[in-house]
């Protein structure tokens, strides 16, 4: 697939059809819950607490609202909704920087759904047992470069054992199953499901620069595992693309939220006898951020369409959206601190939460430089 081809892709004829009514309803119901239970005051409390997230909220969103099963096909017990239902939830969580494992879990469910029949037993369990998932791809030295995956998988059929160390794993705190990328004896890469409470698994959760997102190191020593993807397929890539999609969607929404808050502040804060938002130097910076946010939104929307239609450009579009959206969040959040002045530099204020989330979104699942090189390669440049 090359994008910079002689026959450039047209704009018209690739319209996104009307999002389903149901997606709008799902979004509305989660907005209601989150507005009540997950404002940034709450995030401030949670992020310095022992668990780093709100288990009660997680329970409410999963067991009561059933969000994990949204996009699981009906014949496996799920609601069988469109990909956009899950992505809408990821956006709403992202806009509020909600700490926890739901977004990472939804990304893993979407990935499993894209893996086809081999992942169906897992998806059925997701609904039956309200399974929260996490994804473990990165390794020391290799980062998210799948080619350099060193974790070993030994076994056959349903019985596998994994040995290796996964780093920078998000969302393990509530996960009951971790999807792990590993290499079998023949050198083939695959995706395996591991129970983090298994005797062969040791999880160390770290304090993190982005306090809204705890990260863990997962040591695997002959840990019992089942294979989730079909051998010879591109399972690990599918998983990586969906993790990136999650980061992109969260970041696009957070960038928007952060800009909105900043603009509101500029309207009320007065200096020199006028609202500082009337100073053109500040206005123009906000306008540039608004343009960037619109662009990020567009790449995120396009990615959702790609995921929904199962388009062959998935890896390219996920990389592009992750790059553009996380860079945008970083830019907006950095300006948010500056435009708030002294108050923006305080721990008490929310601006740094967006700033730190922006950095973690940029660096997780491939740094901007890495992803940019990947986009270039995927585009045939």
């Amino acid at each position: 697939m090359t994008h910079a081809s002689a026959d450039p892709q047209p704009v018209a004829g690739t319209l996104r059809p009307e999002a389903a009514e149901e997606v709008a309803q799902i979004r509305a119901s989660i907005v209601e819950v989150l507005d009540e239970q997950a404002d940034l005051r709450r995030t401030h409390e949670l992020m310095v607490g022992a668990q780093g997230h709100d288990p009660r909220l997680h329970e409410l969103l999963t067991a009561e609202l059933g969000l994990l099963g949204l996009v699981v096909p009906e014949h496996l017990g799920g609601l069988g909704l469109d990909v956009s239902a899950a992505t809408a939830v990821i956006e709403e969580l992202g806009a509020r920087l909600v700490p926890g494992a739901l977004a990472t879990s939804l990304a893993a469910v979407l990935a499993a759904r894209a893996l086809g029949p081999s992942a169906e037993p897992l998806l059925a369990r997701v609904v039956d047992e309200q399974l929260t998932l996490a994804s473990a791809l990165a390794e020391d030295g290799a980062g998210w470069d799948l080619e350099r995956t060193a974790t070993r998988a030994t076994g056959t059929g349903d019985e596998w054992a994994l040995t290796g160390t996964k780093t920078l794993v998000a969302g393990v705190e509530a996960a009951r199953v971790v999807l792990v990328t590993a290499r079998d004896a023949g050198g083939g890469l695959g995706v395996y499901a591991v129970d983090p409470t298994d005797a062969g698994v040791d999880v160390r959760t770290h304090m993190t620069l982005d306090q809204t997102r705890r990260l863990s190191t997962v040591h695997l020593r002959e840990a019992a595992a089942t294979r989730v993807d079909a051998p010879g397929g591109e399972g690990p890539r599918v998983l990586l693309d969906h993790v990136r999609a999650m980061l992109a969607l969260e970041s696009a929404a957070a960038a928007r939220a952060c800009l909105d808050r900043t603009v509101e502040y500029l309207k009320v804060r007065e200096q020199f006898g006028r609202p500082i938002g009337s100073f053109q130097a500040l206005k123009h910076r906000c306008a540039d951020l608004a343009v960037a946010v619109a662009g990020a939104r567009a790449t995120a929307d396009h990615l959702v369409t790609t995921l929904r239609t199962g388009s062959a450009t998935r890896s390219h579009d996920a990389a592009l959206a992750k790059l553009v959206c996380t860079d945008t969040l970083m830019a907006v959040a950095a300006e948010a601190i500056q435009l708030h002045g002294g108050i923006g530099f305080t721990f008490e204020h929310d601006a740094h939460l967006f700033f730190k989330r922006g950095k973690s979104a940029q660096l997780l699942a491939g740094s901007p430089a890495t992803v940019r090189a990947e986009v270039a390669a995927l585009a045939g440049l």
Partner: protein
Amino acid sequence: MSDEQFRAEIRGWLHEALSGPFAGAVGTGGEGREHEAHELRREWERHLGRAGWIGLGWPSEYGGRPATLAQQVIYHEEYARAAAPGRLGHMSEQLLGPTLLAFGTPEQKARFLPGITSGEDIWCQGYSEPDAGSDLAGVRTRAERRGDSYVITGQKVWTSLAHLADWCFVLCRTDPGSTRHAGLSYLLVPMHQPGITVRPITQLTGTSEFNEVFFDGAVAAVEHRVGAEGEGWKVAMGTLGFERGVSTLGQQIGFRRRLDAVIARAHENGAWQEPALRDRLVEAYIGLEVMRHSAVRLLASAGAGLSGLEASISKLQWATWNRSLGELAVDVEGAGALLTGPGYELDDAQTHFLFSRANTIYGGSNEIQRNIIAERLLGLPR
């Protein structure tokens, strides 16, 4: 007709026309190249008109053809893809036509739209003056009513294609005591008459596509005033909205061609090995992807048309992007880009580099677009 059938039809038609009688017009005209092949391009306008490719989405009684917004974008995409000649009639079709459809009387529509859809009449835009640019409300050109006519005195500047145009839509002050937005009227003025002097201005490209236009007793019929007397501001703002409209959604294809050319050149001359240049090329690729997805998004939400705000966002995006690509085009070329042909004849990279500086000035400068976005989208105080 499906979008794909529509695309096939316009693509086939362009291919035939541009490999036959108009082969010599391929790639001529357009930004920085308006001085090229006038006669042939004028004939091209008529050829387009005869085939019904002007005025898509306009009522058929005025020579238009029914077409959805998506089809209009497809038309612009295919036009760019085929490197069809720069449209001498772009202001006629993109600016004046929609303005008349929105604000014109039935008589005005019947009188002027067929001349546009047939490719016969070329129009220019008489807004800017020496003291009224970004602050368009500072217009001073006066029009005094005498019986059935207005008599116009004053000066316009930067008037693109005035030297080739048959008509000009002119914003003038009809109420002598008025200031700012009040007291302005929007007049349709024939260019071929005594009392109008057009003086070409040489641009930094060494060529000339814009002009000074002097009005010294030139006449416009009262029935050719669009909108009420003194309410020209509203009409003029309508035109500005159209200026940043549908055709910009289709321009990604043309941009992609330019980017591809720069990338191909970088591969050819080894500039691609230069990490800093390669990174800028990848950055340009990413910027174009963002614009393409933004255009899809706008198109999906646009319904009947684009709002001024959406248009401002896309204007700021594309103008800035294209200007950067112009710089990149010569940087990829290296010092070799410093040599021109005889008579300061410029190649594509040089033309792009120099002309793209205009993108962020005309049609509302970047600064003006930022003001619009800050105040109207974000609601920041004036």
